């Protein structure tokens, strides 16, 4: 605000008056229409509806490209000039930030910064909560200054990513085909489900699901699941390779659609899954539960980062976009898909009381719950799997992570797939 006003003084008193009464963005409201920002990221939040709404609300054009996690990481790390806005996960940020392809963001320009949930600021959902293992977002969320290349452990005022979306992941099950309660991660390797289990074939996420299972089986307790030693990786892979050779797994999946098809067709009754995949199975009329488990959730978080080459009007537009992002409309859209918004309270205004109660507060639905695209997801009286925001995000056992031994892990993962 102050900066813009100073510029306006030079332009003349009239502009100054307009600038200070109407708010900063209005000054460049005319030429901003010519701005095009190129955003890329994983499919979860690269939604055309968002691009359309940006055009409508802010006037500039947002070009979206959706890629899988591996390609996103590659592109952020190797093609800094191919994007303006990177919509990436925090574990990807840990890999990409040191390359210098992203620029630090000034939190004083983020209107709703103070309302961002604690997970992304000091790591704590509530003052009493303990911080989960893995790459917790706040550990890679801040850097020392505008030109920072490292991470700092306090709210330095310069963020690497502005958090946008996150969720707590667990196993998906087919209750109709299992017919008994599932309470632990270890059930994934239960011989009862021989030939009917699946795990995702994305090494950095799959290894965390594996670790949850190994701990739940009582085979080993990791000092830090998010940063295993070579011995720990070997041990984890050994348990899963044995299970694979005994025919425990029906298939491995790599894309969202594959996981939906495996579950909906009944090929698989228990598997690692993502929240909207459950929704997709349900919308086919097939019973499917995102089963809360005693050991807790494996969580992930995503945010928006700015390309290092972004400057001037484009950068102003990007900040405007970020402020708009946290302003509630997108948050409401994402929350109605089962994700969480970084600033839940602004999203509330964009959801009905019934929706807010069902998705966020864990209350029984008072009416039919529909997805943003209009599919019915739950009927009156139903409660969200896992309950409220506090119940779900408060039970996170680990975050998606990048390990120091990442390359070794990836090689071992390839061996596991080939075994």
């Amino acid at each position: 605000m102050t900066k813009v006003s100073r510029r306006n003084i030079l332009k003349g008193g009239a502009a100054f008056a307009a600038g200070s009464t109407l708010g900063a963005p209005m000054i460049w409201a005319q030429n901003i229409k010519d701005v095009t920002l190129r955003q890329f990221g994983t499919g979860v939040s690269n939604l055309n509806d968002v691009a359309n709404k940006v055009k409508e609300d802010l006037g500039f054009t947002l070009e979206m490209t959706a890629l899988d996690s591996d390609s996103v990481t590659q592109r952020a790390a190797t093609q800094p000039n191919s994007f303006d806005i990177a919509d990436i996960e925090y574990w990807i940020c840990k890999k990409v930030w040191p390359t210098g392809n992203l620029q630090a963001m000034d939190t004083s320009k983020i209107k709703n910064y103070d309302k961002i949930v604690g997970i992304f600021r000091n790591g704590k959902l509530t003052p009493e909560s303990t911080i989960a293992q893995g790459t917790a977002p706040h550990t890679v969320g801040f850097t020392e200054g505008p030109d920072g290349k490292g991470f700092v452990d306090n709210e330095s005022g310069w963020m690497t990513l502005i958090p946008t979306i996150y969720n707590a992941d667990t196993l998906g099950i087919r209750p109709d085909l299992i017919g008994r309660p599932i309470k632990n991660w270890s059930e994934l390797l239960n011989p009862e489900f021989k030939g009917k289990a699946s795990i995702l074939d994305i090494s950095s996420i799959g290894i965390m699901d594996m670790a949850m299972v190994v701990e739940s089986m009582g085979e080993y307790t990791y000092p830090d699941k998010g940063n295993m030693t070579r011995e720990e990786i070997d041990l984890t892979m050994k348990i899963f390779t044995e299970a694979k050779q005994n025919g425990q797994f029906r298939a491995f999946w790599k894309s969202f659609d594959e996981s939906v098809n495996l579950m909906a067709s009944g090929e698989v009754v228990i598997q690692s899954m993502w929240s909207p995949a459950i929704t997709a199975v349900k919308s086919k009329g097939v019973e499917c539960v995102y089963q809360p488990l005693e050991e807790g959730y494996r969580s992930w978080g995503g945010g928006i980062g700015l390309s290092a080459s972004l400057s001037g009007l484009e950068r102003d537009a990007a900040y405007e976009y970020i402020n708009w992002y946290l302003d509630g409309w997108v948050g409401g859209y994402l929350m109605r898909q089962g994700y969480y918004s970084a600033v839940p309270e602004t999203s509330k205004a964009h959801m009905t009381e019934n929706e807010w109660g069902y998705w966020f507060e864990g209350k029984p639905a008072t009416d039919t719950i529909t997805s943003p695209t209009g599919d019915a997801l739950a009927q009156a009286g139903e409660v969200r799997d896992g309950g409220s925001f506090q119940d779900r995000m408060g039970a996170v056992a680990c975050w998606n992570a990048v390990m120091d031994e990442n390359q070794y892990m990836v090689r071992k993962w390839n061996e596991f797939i080939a075994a």
Partner: protein
Amino acid sequence: MALPIMAVLMFFLVLPIVMIVTVSFWQATEFSIIPAFDFENYEFLFGSNVTYRVFFNTFKYAFITWVFTLSIGFTVAYFLAFHIRSLTWQIVLFLLCTIPFWTSNIIRMISWIPFLGRNGIANSTLISWGVIDEPLDWLLFSDFAVILAFVHLYTLFMVVPIFNTMMRIDKSLIEAARDAGASGTQILWSVIIPLTKPGIMIGTIFVVTLVMGDFITVRFMSGSQSANVGRLISNDIALLAYPSASATAVVLLLTVLIVIGIMLRFVDIRKEL
């Protein structure tokens, strides 16, 4: 006359291969590729028993697929060439064989998945006929499914060249053999097969190279549970390990060239054409 062809081959064949070979000696960290001359990629490749298992798997797929595509392809071509008398019908039936090729490879492959699944058409039909009581799990996401898809996808590559050479066999040779008292089996074994060898060889080269270079069929039909060399390469590429992917590609290329070299020992295609 040769210059344009040379230029095209240089640009689209020789240059990329030179690039791949060069990069295979480079080093890679997670995000950067460092030009170097280093045997690390090859050392890792030959030092890991996964590589040998995966290459064995690739040969296994190629061999079994070859056996099936050859026997089916030869039979179809033989029927078309010697049992159908009119040229019109030969053309009609031959075109019929190509109809599946009007859709893409991927679609033809993926359409097997609902058919072979646990609750798929195959299993439910077999159960309703009383042949089996429990669904057969090995129908899908197994080596069986992979080979079935390969055979389905690539049999035509066997049919076409074999049919082509069969059509060129002088019918009077067969009549002469019959006049000389040869039985049907003898004619097939001593006249038709030797004269069809170039077609068989061309079909074999097609099928073997296609199967050995494939990665997507193996990924989908095995439910990501089996690996061949192509998947090794695609995994490396996904993780930005281009040098290691290149090294694997070079080894695969050499392997395929050796296989083809051995095959060409048996039949001199140029002489036979």
